């Protein structure tokens, strides 16, 4: 298992484990704010999920290149927070313009949450994890894609469950974020079931 094949296998394992065993929301708590705020309807959840997958896949790759070709040679390692966030913000701005142009409905629905993708912890989190775990470029992109997909899976299923819950009577204090967190806990519990399947990091 050396060279490209080994790398591809590693990438695949990392990608799958990012979806199931190491889910961004359910085991690392990243991207929780939009997860609670935008999970009322499947359609919006799906739109935001797609945007996150897209942004994550690309920014993880760009950030990898920026880190390894700019920061490491210059020994400006500590500067990575600022560089990553700038790259992410610029990229999100770009995606926002595209969505505004091609899907005004989605743009209206997502409202203030689109700029908030910039401060979606999942996106910066992936870039920081990639530095800590010392991934190669292919693995990083696979990890970004997998994390995005896992996040989307979680938010779409959450939206589905919450739509069902619309009709049910929930104690006042538990409405909204409370019940969402309990559902998230149950989902996290379910996802722990996957942990025996893959142990890729």
């Amino acid at each position: 298992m050396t060279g490209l094949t080994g790398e591809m296998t590693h990438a695949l394992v990392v990608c799958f484990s990012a979806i199931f065993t190491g889910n961004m929301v359910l085991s690392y708590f990243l991207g929780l704010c939009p997860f609670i705020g935008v999970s009322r309807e499947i359609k919006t959840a799906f739109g935001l999920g797609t945007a996150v997958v897209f942004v994550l896949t690309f920014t993880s790759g760009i950030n990898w290149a920026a880190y390894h070709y700019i920061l490491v040679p210059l020994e400006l390692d500590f500067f990575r927070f600022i560089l990553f966030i700038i790259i992410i913000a610029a990229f999100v701005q770009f995606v926002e313009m595209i969505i505004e142009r091609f899907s005004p409905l989605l743009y209206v629905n997502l409202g203030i949450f689109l700029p908030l993708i910039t401060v979606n912890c999942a996106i910066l989190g992936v870039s920081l994890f990639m530095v800590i775990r010392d991934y190669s470029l292919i693995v990083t992109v696979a990890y970004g894609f997998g994390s995005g997909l896992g996040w989307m899976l979680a938010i779409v299923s959450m939206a589905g469950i919450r739509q069902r819950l619309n009709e049910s009577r929930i104690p006042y204090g538990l409405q909204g974020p409370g019940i969402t967190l309990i559902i998230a806990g149950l989902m996290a519990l379910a996802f722990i079931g996957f942990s025996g399947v893959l142990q890729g990091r």
Partner: protein
Amino acid sequence: MSSNKSASKKIILDGLWGNNPIFRQVLGICSTLAVTNLVINTAVMCAALTLTTALSCFTVSLLRAYTPRRIRMMVQTLIIASYVIMVDLYLKAYWPEMSANLGPYVGLIITNCIIMGRCEAFAVANPPVPSLVDGLFNGLGYSLILLAVSITRELLGMGTILGYPMPYFSTLWDKWIIMVMPPGAFFTLALIIWLCRSIQTTGREKTS
């Protein structure tokens, strides 16, 4: 002067309870929830977060007249990021084990929505000192809830608090492993939010 005093009292109470970042605004739980399995980690994270929130709000407010509206988000992010870098370097230098424990979560303070939220909602339109107070007490209100979560989790999951074994919980108590794992954090936080919101509504009904 008295109106000034009552204004700051309102800011303080709102941050701690009335408009608590966690159970009212539900913002910024991401980066800190992950480290609530141990009280000591949470305490360090919350201290870092409170400090960053207060100082960022202060700085944003100082610069509010000189920041063009269109790029204010970027400016705010850069201000927050600079403070986070300071905290991160400080931890790496003086407490490397803690820095390794917290992993990427210190850096993730940057994307913690509560800081940005306070800067946007308060600091851009208010003078520096009230902004500092607002940031500080929102940070404290946030820390309060998360410390409650982490104390519950560590006590029920490991039978210790701050690493010290507790009577009964470390010996007779059947440890709930689930509390140490991610679902435990969700459940604990949900229950605390439920409790706080219920108390708040009963309080409001009584006054009205």
